[in-house]
């Protein structure tokens, strides 16, 4: 399916673009159709009830139905050209059942009551075939039905209602700024997502939700042909759980400093000008001397380190071994949680899991198995206190109910445990970024995310960045290049010595975090304020070929 859709998009001339994989799952449609109203809730309820009844009649002890309409839009440009405008829509129904103590799943894009009943029966047949080789029967945490409810985020401007021309104009204006200021190449894109999801289950929930995400980004490239070197600088934007208002600059959402960074609003034209200046500096920057440095990490960078080294190892399915064949397991084994004293990080480290923060990618009213969303602690004063669990895992860690973090990327994929927003809490004392930097003797200040890699149990990681500034005796001493840092997760978080206060707290995020087989993508935000880590190993990544 995925490959076929990829070929189809490629045939339409979009194959050469770097489009996140999830964008290729849908079918291109025209933009006007994308803002059509979906089908009426009462019709969805009728369809869902037909599927639930059929599943029960065929022997399912539990069933849920997800009727989903998934809209994506990508506007892609390079220099002065529009490379592609694609709208994709994917509409269909996924049905999950429990029969003979085993899960079964089937999906169809033929949305009629007869087809849904047949699909429900197919899901039961899958469950029955697999029950023969099933181990322990699935145990679902109890979940009361919510009746007929709905949820929408407080977006101000639906990105799908903004004319394509406005987006093209913005991107081409940004590109022009880069080219006028000496860039050799520039690519820029706006991605928009709208998930219109209807969930119904035999528990008695009928949940209608409308979810929006946006991700504007660019890459500026500068080439020094004489020395054969090229460098890039990506946008300091973040994917957000917002509408098009994210692209309307707001002075109060700007964080001034060595380069302007952005909170809940983004100024693409300003950032691309800064990026073009920075990429030229990067070309001529000093190559880093490998060794131990104190790192001061901006939220635009730190989100990815949090994601990989805190978010993933606290996923309970990884801890238990459900991801052993793909993403891997976790060093945070159950005994470390049971002991209640495992020092994951220094006492300053407080990490919260959350599915409710406004504007974040993870925010929804209810998850994809009908559980109302919430916030809970993962790391408290440096100690591991909890994991991320869904209904069929809750009993394993003694929970009465799910954390509400189950998600499927589309109607055609089965839902499973996915990462909520996982955020490092800001420092409680008043501390600015300058306060952090002025105490560092030998350090590197890193802004923006770059290369990233971590082992399958989340011990050993390596991260790059967008820009690297040397800190000497409390002062910024110019730009460095070829920087990457390597560390052990626990040593790294225990070396955390200073966190800026909440006025510096910002969200970063992953638009397409992959997990599962077949692989599914998930969108998740990670908040933090600028944070200092002491004595981290930095390597030089320059090579000659």
């Amino acid at each position, binding site marked *: 399916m995925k490959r076929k859709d990829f070929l189809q998009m490629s045939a339409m001339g979009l194959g050469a673009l770097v489009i996140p994989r999830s964008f290729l799952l849908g079918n291109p449609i025209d933009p006007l159709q994308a803002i059509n109203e979906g089908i009426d809730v009462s019709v969805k309820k009728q369809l869902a009830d037909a599927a639930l009844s059929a599943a029960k009649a065929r022997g399912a002890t539990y069933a849920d139905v997800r009727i989903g309409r998934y809209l994506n839009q990508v506007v892609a440009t390079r220099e002065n*050209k529009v490379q592609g405008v694609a709208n994709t829509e994917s509409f269909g129904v996924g049905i999950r059942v429990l029969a003979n103590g085993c899960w079964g799943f089937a999906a169809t894009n033929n949305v009629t009551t007869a087809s849904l009943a047949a699909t429900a029966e197919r899901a039961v047949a899958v469950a029955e075939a697999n029950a023969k080789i099933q181990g322990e029967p699935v145990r679902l945490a109890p979940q009361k039905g919510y009746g007929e409810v709905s949820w929408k985020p407080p977006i101000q401007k639906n990105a799908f209602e903004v004319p394509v021309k406005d987006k093209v104009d913005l991107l081409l204006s940004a590109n022009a700024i880069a080219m006028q200021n000496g860039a050799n190449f520039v690519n820029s894109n706006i991605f928009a997502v709208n998930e219109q999801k209807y969930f119904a289950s035999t528990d008695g929930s009928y949940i209608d939700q409308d979810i929006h995400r946006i991700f504007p980004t660019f890459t500026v490239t500068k080439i020094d042909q004489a020395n054969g070197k090229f460098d890039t600088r990506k946008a300091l934007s973040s994917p957000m759980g917002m509408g098009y208002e994210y692209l309307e600059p707001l002075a109060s959402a700007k964080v001034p400093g060595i380069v302007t960074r952005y909170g809940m609003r983004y100024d693409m034209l300003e950032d691309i000008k800064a990026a073009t200046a920075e990429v030229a500096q990067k070309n001529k920057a000093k190559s880093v001397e490998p060794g131990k440095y104190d790192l001061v990490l901006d939220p635009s960078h730190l989100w990815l380190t949090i994601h990989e080294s805190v978010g993933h190892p606290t996923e309970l399915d990884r801890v238990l071994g459900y991801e052993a064949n793909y993403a891997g397991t976790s060093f945070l084994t159950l005994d470390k949680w049971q002991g209640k004293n495992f020092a994951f990080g220094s006492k300053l480290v407080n990490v919260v899991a959350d599915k409710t923060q406004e504007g974040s990618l993870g925010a929804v009213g209810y998850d994809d198995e009908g559980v109302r969303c919430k916030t809970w602690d993962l790391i408290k004063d440096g100690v591991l206190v909890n994991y991320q669990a869904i209904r069929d895992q809750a009993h394993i860690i003694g929970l009465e109910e799910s954390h509400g973090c189950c998600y499927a990327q589309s109607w055609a994929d089965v839902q499973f445990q996915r990462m909520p927003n996982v955020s490092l809490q800001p420092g409680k004392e008043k501390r600015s970024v300058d306060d952090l930097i002025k105490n560092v003797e030998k350090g590197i200040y890193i802004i923006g995310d770059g290369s990233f890699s971590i082992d399958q149990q989340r011990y050993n990681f390596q991260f790059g960045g967008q820009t690297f500034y040397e800190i000497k005796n409390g002062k910024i001493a110019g730009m460095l290049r070829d920087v990457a840092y390597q560390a052990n997760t626990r040593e790294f978080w225990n070396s955390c010595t200073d966190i800026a206060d909440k006025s510096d707290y910002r969200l970063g995020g992953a638009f397409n975090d992959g997990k599962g087989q077949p692989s599914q993508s998930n969108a998740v935000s990670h908040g933090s304020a600028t944070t200092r880590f002491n004595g981290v190993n930095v390597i030089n990544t320059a090579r000659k070929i």
Partner: protein
Amino acid sequence: MPILSTEEAQAILKKALSYSKADECTVTLGGSEGGNIRYARNAVSTAGDVSQMSLGVTSSFGKKSGSATINEFDDASLQKVIKRAEELASLAPENPEYMPLLGPQTYLESVAFKPATAAMDPDKRADAVAKSLNVAKEGKLEAAGFLENTAGFNAMLNSKGLYGYNKNTDVSFSVTLRNQAGTGSGYVDKSYNDVAKLDTLALTRIAASKANGSAGAKAIEPGKYTVILEPLAASDMLSNLMNGFDARNADEGRSFMSKKGGGTRLGEQLFDPKVTIYSDPLNADLPGATWSPDGRPVTKTVWVDKGVVKKLAYSRYWAQQKNAEALPPANRVIVEGGTASLENMIKNTEKGILVTRFWYIRNVDPQTLLLTGLTRDGTFYIENGKIQFPIKNFRFNESPVIMLNNVEELGKPERTGNMIVPPMKIRDFTFTSLSDAV
């Protein structure tokens, strides 16, 4: 039934095209069906069954194009999707790089479809997984695995009379076995177009042997080592290499294939003379599509011959700009090897490290294609021609371009994922730190 024959597909495409009023129009039709089982902790965790088909249209007026698709195929729906694409085309900005459509082409007949693979049902998948689970249970090991089979077709017709049809099947199986103490882990991952070649029992036994053999790993110092990469590890390192064979990126100065001072490295001895890389859509173990998404014929192509870069891939636009052959990119490549078995390669190694696979590989520097990642699921120390003991996993920072210059020996190639690669003995492979991960 979404796997249409060429006649059935052509009939739908012709009808759709008959409604077009655009200067140029391409209609594509693709469908797939398949299923999967995922298991972990020695039991099934999820399983599914999905089938889909959809029709896509790209219409152009002059240099303005628009695209739309639909998944209903009655006359009214076909008219609607053509009209939508035409409306979008009229709204679109001109694309200065627009290329007129190709006329009729001659394609090789695809050999990628095997009926037995397409015919796998939930019970057959469950049987195959049961064999794998038995190996784990008997060996007191814990299995997590994934089995997936897919069948698909793609067809294309354009207003200049170009028509293409391909169909394919694939089945892939991977399994991780871990010991109960969590101190040993083994893995296999194999794909075939013909399910008759899949033996989940034998493959799971290999993973079991790696799980037991990797328990109790010792730490050795990171540094430069001679490595023997099993085919899976070699393919992990090479999976991004062909992206660098894009002529435009090379000409623009932003690829490892760019030449200092301008131009590309086409014709240069970029790799060791033992390295030859080609693609061939008719390879029996790795059959592929016989036409590219924009309708260009795909035929056997030698990209690297004895270490010399022979071909780069060009879009039709860039080929016209550079007056070059418009060669479509390779999507499945074959790296030639020798005849040596992995066992013999180990026997001939005085001191080195055997790598089963790599994990979490990411690009660190596109300039040199420097990659970082880690070893996983079975890393062993070799001395005096024998595996001596399992070692802890390493992080590496290495470029496949440098690696393919440090080739000592290539063994017998085999399919792994979407490549055919030999086991490789490489000198001076750079490991930069240790990992506690198992």
